[in-house]
């Protein structure tokens, strides 16, 4: 009952925020509202008991998207341009699509219905077999890392491709260091502001440590490679904000970041290939060790590390790509 009240209240706020984001013409206000939107979204996931997803939304939405949006905003005008053409066509297309989606929801099973097809297909088998085959308590990690290892490999390649795509688009005409996060050399970052500097310096190691905890605790609680990669990237971005982008690039040069993007994906694939060489199927971790349960655990830890490395490298590469752009 109480979940329903929370859910309805938060979803109402979500709709109001979404309308406000569309209505406002000030892009900075839109960025602020988007950060509220993501907080609401994470609270909703949390109430639906999807802790892993909520943690992802928390790690990506609260810190990194705001920073990247602001980086993009610094390169453009603060107000949205009005485009008089095609407004009615857009309205028509959106209305038809919305009507179709609302119509489709009539076929949807009730929220949380235990007889819904999605809960009857393979989910019971996963829940039953996870303790036996892997011996880890978090079924989400088991499904993500092992049962659906192919899907996660695909996701890692999507992150990889997205990173390369953003770098490719943004590096056209590059070479001038004058974006948001590297203004002029005499006053880089926020290093002249005492309070953010002191508090921020204290926080950086804790954020990175917490990221590592999320990475390696993913088999026992909410967390895993995606979330950990984002949290560690946030820690490095905090350092870049405090000390200027150049110092962050000194600590972690672009080549290292690209190496992380490629290396993580390679590590994941490598674990799969190692399974094949040891006589199993691609991404079958049972053969990695003499005991299949330990083998599964080793495999999951290794591929989660691959995911984390790729995500962290990609987010930081994208951040630096925005920061290095010339405003026009």
């Amino acid at each position: 009952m109480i979940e329903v009240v929370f859910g309805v209240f938060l979803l109402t706020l979500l709709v109001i925020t979404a309308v406000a984001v569309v209505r406002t013409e000030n892009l900075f206000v839109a960025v602020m509202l988007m950060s509220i939107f993501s907080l609401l979204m994470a609270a909703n996931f949390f109430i639906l008991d999807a802790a892993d997803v909520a943690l992802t939304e928390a790690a990506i939405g609260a810190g990194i998207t705001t920073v990247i949006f602001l980086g993009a905003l610094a390169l453009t005008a603060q107000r949205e341009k009005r485009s008089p053409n095609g407004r009615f066509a857009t309205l028509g297309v959106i209305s038809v699509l919305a009507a179709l989606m609302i119509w489709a929801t009539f076929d949807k099973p009730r929220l949380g219905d235990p007889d819904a097809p999605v809960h009857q297909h393979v989910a019971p088998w996963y829940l039953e077999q996870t303790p036996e085959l892997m011996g880890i308590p978090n079924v989400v990690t088991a499904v993500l890392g092992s049962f659906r290892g192919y899907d996660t490999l695909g996701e890692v390649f999507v992150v990889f491709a997205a990173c390369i795509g953003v770098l490719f688009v943004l590096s056209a005409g590059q070479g001038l260091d004058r974006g948001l996060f590297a203004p002029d050399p005499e006053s880089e970052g926020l290093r002249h502001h005492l309070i953010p500097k002191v508090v921020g310096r204290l926080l950086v190691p804790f954020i990175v440590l917490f990221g590592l905890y999320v990475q390696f605790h993913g088999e026992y609680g909410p967390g895993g490679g995606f979330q950990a990669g984002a949290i560690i990237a946030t820690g490095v971005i905090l350092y870049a904000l405090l000390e200027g982008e150049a110092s962050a690039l000194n600590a972690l040069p672009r080549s290292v970041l690209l190496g992380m993007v490629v290396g993580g994906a390679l590590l994941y694939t490598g674990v799969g290939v190692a399974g094949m060489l040891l006589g199993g199927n691609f991404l079958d971790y049972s053969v990695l060790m003499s005991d299949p349960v330990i083998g599964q655990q080793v495999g999951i830890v290794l591929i989660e590390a691959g995911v984390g490395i790729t995500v962290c490298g990609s987010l930081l590469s994208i951040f630096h790509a925005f920061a290095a752009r010339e405003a026009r």
Partner: protein
Amino acid sequence: MLDNAIYLVVSIAILVTMGLAMARAILGPTVYDRVLAANVFGTKTVLLLSVIAFLYGRPDFLDLALTYALINFVGILAVLQFFQSRSRTEAKEAKD
């Protein structure tokens, strides 16, 4: 039982303050109202998640609230940086 009643009342109070912060974020009128509203909203989310974690009896979900508490700060620093570099650019343009 009493614990649950307290958690319930607290979470509803937090929902109300979230609604108020929301109103400030949408009404504005200045940009700083919105920055403040977003910041307050972040804090309220951290509190709501922690209280709900105890209400549901899943204190291990506190990890999530902790993530927000650590990371929200970075977003606000980025906003500071944004205004610092924007005002500097404007000052430079005015000088030119």
